[in-house]
């Protein structure tokens, strides 16, 4: 009862980065429990995936070949059966959109506690201490629980495991009850297409909730015109229908790495930061000096965007 089982994430033939990050998180935890790190890869081209996942620190990789793409019923059943077989102390699952679609079901079915979206985790072998954020990252909390648990880990918090491992790769014969699969995945659609590709821009003028209303969007567009830059945005602007989906920067939108990213009235929620932290230079214009965006900004103006933006536009007209 001291092993760690980590489940990997893939989509449309590609392992997602979090699958390599969860190896690092799992290895750290297994070192603390004194157990082995087991990985599982479920559905799709599992043999190919297993070879790629055999990185330093992995003791065993279990392949479950049922299914092609993610189906939460298959993942729930397979993970539950792996738990019964391996009796690990901790089950790690990515806190991805798909992770959140089966981790709570696994935990509930096994009568285990669940801690989600953790940014840090450690154990003394009995008590697990998970670090989480609250209030959009304004505070961090530590959360303790005893005994076995399901833990979902936030992406990009742990470095990706490197090197070549020496894991045993074994096929796990899961007994999938097809009658119990109440949902069917029919396909995928790319929704961020269109005439503009914000990931190609050298300079992005990016607008967030601070713009307050749709009627104010033109001041951002005027600035982008004056700078010969491209307009992008954070999620709420797209949710409100003020800009199209192809302008959205972040986890559910595009990942961008421009030379200069000007964040205007954007607080910097983790989902947004995931999409723009690789920018060369980040400038934040925000009245709140404690906004999370300041943690990654290189330059900041703590002032009203309705004063600064027109002044900047004028500077270049």
């Amino acid at each position, binding site marked *: 009862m001291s092993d760690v089982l980590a489940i990997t994430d893939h*989509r449309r033939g590609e392992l997602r980065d979090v699958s390599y990050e969860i190896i690092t998180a799992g290895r750290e935890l297994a070192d603390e429990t004194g157990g082995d790190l087991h990985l599982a890869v479920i559905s799709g081209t599992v043999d190919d995936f297993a070879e790629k996942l055999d990185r330093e620190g992995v003791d065993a990789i279990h392949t479950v070949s049922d299914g092609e793409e993610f189906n939460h019923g298959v993942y729930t059943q397979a993970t539950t059966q792996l738990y019964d077989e391996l009796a690990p102390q901790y089950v790690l699952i990515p806190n991805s959109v798909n992770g959140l679609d089966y981790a709570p*079901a696994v935990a509930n079915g096994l009568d285990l506690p669940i801690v989600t979206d953790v940014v840090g985790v450690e154990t003394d072998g009995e008590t697990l201490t998970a670090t989480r954020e609250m209030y959009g990252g304004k505070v961090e909390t530590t959360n303790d629980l005893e005994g076995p648990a399901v833990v979902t880990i936030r992406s990009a918090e742990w470095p990706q495991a490197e090197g070549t491992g020496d894991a045993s790769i074994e096929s796990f014969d899961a007994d999938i009850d097809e009658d119990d699969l*109440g949902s069917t995945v029919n396909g995928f659609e790319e929704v961020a297409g269109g005439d503009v590709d914000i990931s190609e821009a050298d300079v992005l003028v990016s607008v967030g909730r601070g713009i307050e209303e749709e009627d104010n969007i033109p001041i951002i567009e005027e600035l982008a015109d004056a700078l010969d830059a491209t307009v992008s945005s954070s999620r709420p602007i797209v949710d409100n229908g003020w800009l199209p989906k192809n302008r959205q920067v972040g986890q559910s939108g595009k990942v961008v790495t421009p030379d200069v990213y000007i964040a205007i009235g954007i607080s910097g929620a983790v989902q947004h930061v995931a999409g723009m932290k690789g920018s060369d230079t980040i400038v934040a214009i925000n009245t709140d000096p404690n906004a999370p965006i300041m943690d990654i900004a290189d330059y900041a103006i703590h002032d009203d965007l309705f004063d600064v933006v027109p002044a900047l536009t004028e500077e270049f007209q």
Partner: protein
Amino acid sequence: MKILVTVKEVATVEDEFEIEGTAIADQYLGEDLNEWDDYAIEEAVQLQENGVADEVVTVTIGPEDCEQTIRQALAKGADRAIRVWDDALEGVDLLDVGAKRSILQEVIAAEDPDLVLTGVQSGDDSWGATGVSLAEELDYEWAAVVNHLEHDLDDGIAAVRRELEGGVEELTDVELPAVLSIQTGINEPRYASLRGIRQAQRKPLDVQTLGDLGVDESAVEGAVTLTDMYEPESESDVTVWEGSADETASELGELLRDKGVAP
């Protein structure tokens, strides 16, 4: 068809605040209807207006203070509300996923809805797991992070889109009864009309204790204990430009010229 929507009054925090023990000091906290729940309510009300749903019921776990927030859902068109509260819940600083599930499952079992809509997560503690946990417990189907729902639910199937990372949506059929966790942007939540607000005052808001629901008090303790809260250390090495808007704008202009990206 009956739809049940889980709603929560969430705590909001001012820019400057202080922490007392494992909580933010009261004077820095405000309250609001959870943003994701607002979209879930809107989706349910639209299903009712389209003639798909006959009744929309909301359920919340919260003290009497949150009734004003909960009535917003009634003002927007929900038919009635259930509020669960109990002395055993006073002063509990963390209701973990298992605790929330134990309470809400009894409400859902009693109401027997065809569809349960939750928000993807709550804006304050962001666990994002209660909906799927409930579905597993009650033998409902489910889908997490739904950003489109076809309003044709006649054949016992909900055709949804799940919003995956990176601008990709998954097209999925979900058998009813089901729990769907609703993502922001799925619709455009309405503002309550004055007439709606007046009507909401007369709509039923039923208060139930743990005893009424047959939930054991020990369930609220949960398995997870909040042990510390602190402000994360800032990793910021930001250069702050001071001065008038003209001055700071000219600093930024200079940076863009330095970087060779100014027009």
